[in-house]
């Protein structure tokens, strides 16, 4: 339990530090907040995890947790892939636009 608490403290401090340094956009802070909420929820329900896992068809609570976390991880990866693709597209457009503007300026200035 101490290990879990230490992990939580570490991640929270990292998120706050990155946010203060402007290295993490607020959009992704929400994502981490949701993750911590899920973590807190699971921590609060730790005594009922076995029952919940069995009701979901898992023999062990650890199996259910693993499946849940892997699914969350995949969802995050998909979300990030979409974000990166959008940024890549915008970047391409910016590169082309800036090349055309520079060429126009070059023509005007002779």
């Amino acid at each position, binding site marked *: 339990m101490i290990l879990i608490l230490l992990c939580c403290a570490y991640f929270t401090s990292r998120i706050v530090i990155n946010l203060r340094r402007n290295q993490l956009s607020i959009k992704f802070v929400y994502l981490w907040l949701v993750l911590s909420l899920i973590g807190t929820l699971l921590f609060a329900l730790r005594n009922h995890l076995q029952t919940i896992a069995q009701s979901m068809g898992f023999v062990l609570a650890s199996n259910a947790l693993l499946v849940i976390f892997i699914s969350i991880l995949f969802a995050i990866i998909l979300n990030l892939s979409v974000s990166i693709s959008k940024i890549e597209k915008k970047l*391409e457009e910016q*590169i*082309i636009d*800036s*090349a*055309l503007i*520079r*060429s126009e300026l070059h023509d005007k200035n002779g």
Partner: protein
Amino acid sequence: MIGIENMQGEITKMRLLILVPAYNEEDVIGSTLKELLAFDFINFNVEIDICVVDDGSTDKTSLIAHEHGVKVIQLHSNLGVGGAVRCGLQYALEKKYDLLLQYDADGQHSPTEIQKMIIESGHVDIVIGSRFTEKGEYEMGILRSMMRLIIAMLLWLACGRYIKDPTSGFRLYNENAIKILARNYPTRYLEDSVLTLYIASHSKLRISEISVKMRSRLGGQPSQSLSSLVQMSIMLIITLIAGTNRKSRN
């Protein structure tokens, strides 16, 4: 005479932009431009400008192109042939060119083939200079040929039209095609040539393929290795199978 009839009923010359996308082509760009500039376009009755889009080269490509007195647009980063062509299409759209000819910097294309492409563009929107419509001298490796065949088949399934040389980079676009493709032209290798046809087909653009003679590269390095060609082909196949929604967004 090839031209456009204006409101007074006079025939005005069409404006053609020859777009040469180039990436690290310092060995060949000079001779390609020299050949283009020396070619006698007088009989064409078309006003011709040449524009080199330097796709973030790290060598002297831009400098050599500047020395030949042609228009040069320099991209800061390497986007791939598609990025350079998209940039050229946007330039052509801004400057109101009637036609845009994509012409390789590596010396594979010949200016003698341009006229028949211009004539063909009179009744279609995109003219593809094909290496395979007639038996020519152009030789392609077995793996590349197989990839081309698979891509052509998939494109036929996706668009209902069989194009023998979907990866040809010798193409002529008219005003309609320029308008539609300027914002939608895919930048990644292979997507730039093949998906463009998919987009064009779904945007109801008319495509025609005519036989042209192509030479082997005069120098420089091919933009993609064989392994990346295989990787890109697989990605392209997935994209075509997924029926990607890449219709015009204009």
